[in-house]
């Protein structure tokens, strides 16, 4: 199967701190990959390099065979772990913003996602709850017809109902031609939608495999493996 992401010997240092330490990882087309690790393990740094927001110190990162740049940014749809919309906007303004910025933004798909998330085009951003914010942001990101979706902590801090809606939206929008990278520390809630899992600890990959093989080998679910790995 074709690799959508190829990472070879990637290292990122912030002055004297090593955030990513010689990481190598391939992500196949059509896969949903979970990057799992506690806060400070390097998850967000990795994602910021993939999305072109940070440059690596050394090593190679290719998306769809290309170095990070204008092309890769055009095929990667990124959900940051914090809000990226202006407070004065209405949802329809956010939609227009995405339409202007991204040629692959599909307004029809966005409308469908809004309905599914029970959001309305005329709602003001500053009146939205945390869960609604997260649902709006995800709707914008999933409405792009991207090759790679990068979702940074998509369900952190939202209530269980919103969490279910977000998981459903992710599943509904999955297709074999695109891949997803999802970071989370809420492993229990996410593990059933992941094909592969990558455990990141102190900037190193300490375990990387298909979720089902890990369950089979260890007779544990991914959540329990996570607890075992990170409590040491």
């Amino acid at each position, binding site marked *: 199967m074709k690799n959508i992401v190829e990472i070879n010997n990637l290292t990122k240092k912030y002055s004297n701190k090593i955030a990513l330490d010689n990481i190598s990882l391939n992500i196949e087309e059509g896969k949903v990959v979970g990057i799992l690790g506690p806060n400070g393990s390097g998850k967000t740094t990795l994602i910021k390099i993939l999305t072109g927001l940070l440059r690596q110190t050394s090593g190679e990162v290719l998306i769809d065979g290309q170095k990070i740049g204008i092309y890769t940014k055009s095929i990667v749809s990124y959900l940051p772990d914090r809000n990226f919309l202006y407070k004065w906007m209405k949802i329809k303004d956010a939609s227009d913003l995405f339409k202007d910025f991204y040629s692959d933004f599909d307004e029809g798909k966005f409308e469908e996602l809004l309905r599914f998330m029970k959001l309305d085009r005329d709602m003001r951003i500053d009146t939205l709850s945390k869960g609604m914010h997260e649902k709006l942001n995800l709707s914008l990101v999933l409405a792009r017809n991207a090759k790679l979706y990068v979702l940074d902590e998509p369900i952190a801090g939202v209530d269980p109902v919103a969490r279910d809606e977000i998981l459903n939206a992710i599943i509904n929008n999955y297709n074999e031609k695109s891949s997803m990278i999802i970071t989370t520390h809420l492993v229990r809630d996410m593990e059933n939608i992941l*094909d592969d899992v990558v455990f990141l600890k102190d900037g190193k990959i300490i375990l990387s495999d298909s979720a089902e093989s890990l369950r089979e080998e*260890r007779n544990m679910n991914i959540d329990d493996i996570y607890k075992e790995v990170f409590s040491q």
Partner: protein
Amino acid sequence: MMEFNNNLPIYIQIMNLIKSKIVSGEINGGDKLSSVRDLSKELKVNPNTIQRAYQELEREGIVFTQRGMGTYVTEDIQVIRSLKMNMASEIMNKFIDDMKRIGLNMDEIKKMFIEWIEKEDR
């Protein structure tokens, strides 16, 4: 929504779920299974995992795929019958193991079992 709590791979848990629906008659021979995508939404599980469960069920001869139509439960009564017998022996094994674990021997288990069934019959 189904809870995937135990430590088996999820595709096997989904296979078991479908098998028990077939054996109990909730799904009949010849019935169409939910599409991969629909079951994926219903169980909140990655579609590739559902696909794998369907493939393994097909390998075991329990379901078959009609190109472009979907996945159907076999109409072979023998296959369904043997599925039922396999599940019954698994339950029986577990039952015997549990009884032994609480310190009963085979004679005691047998006696108790017969008494129990006679009582249920009345």
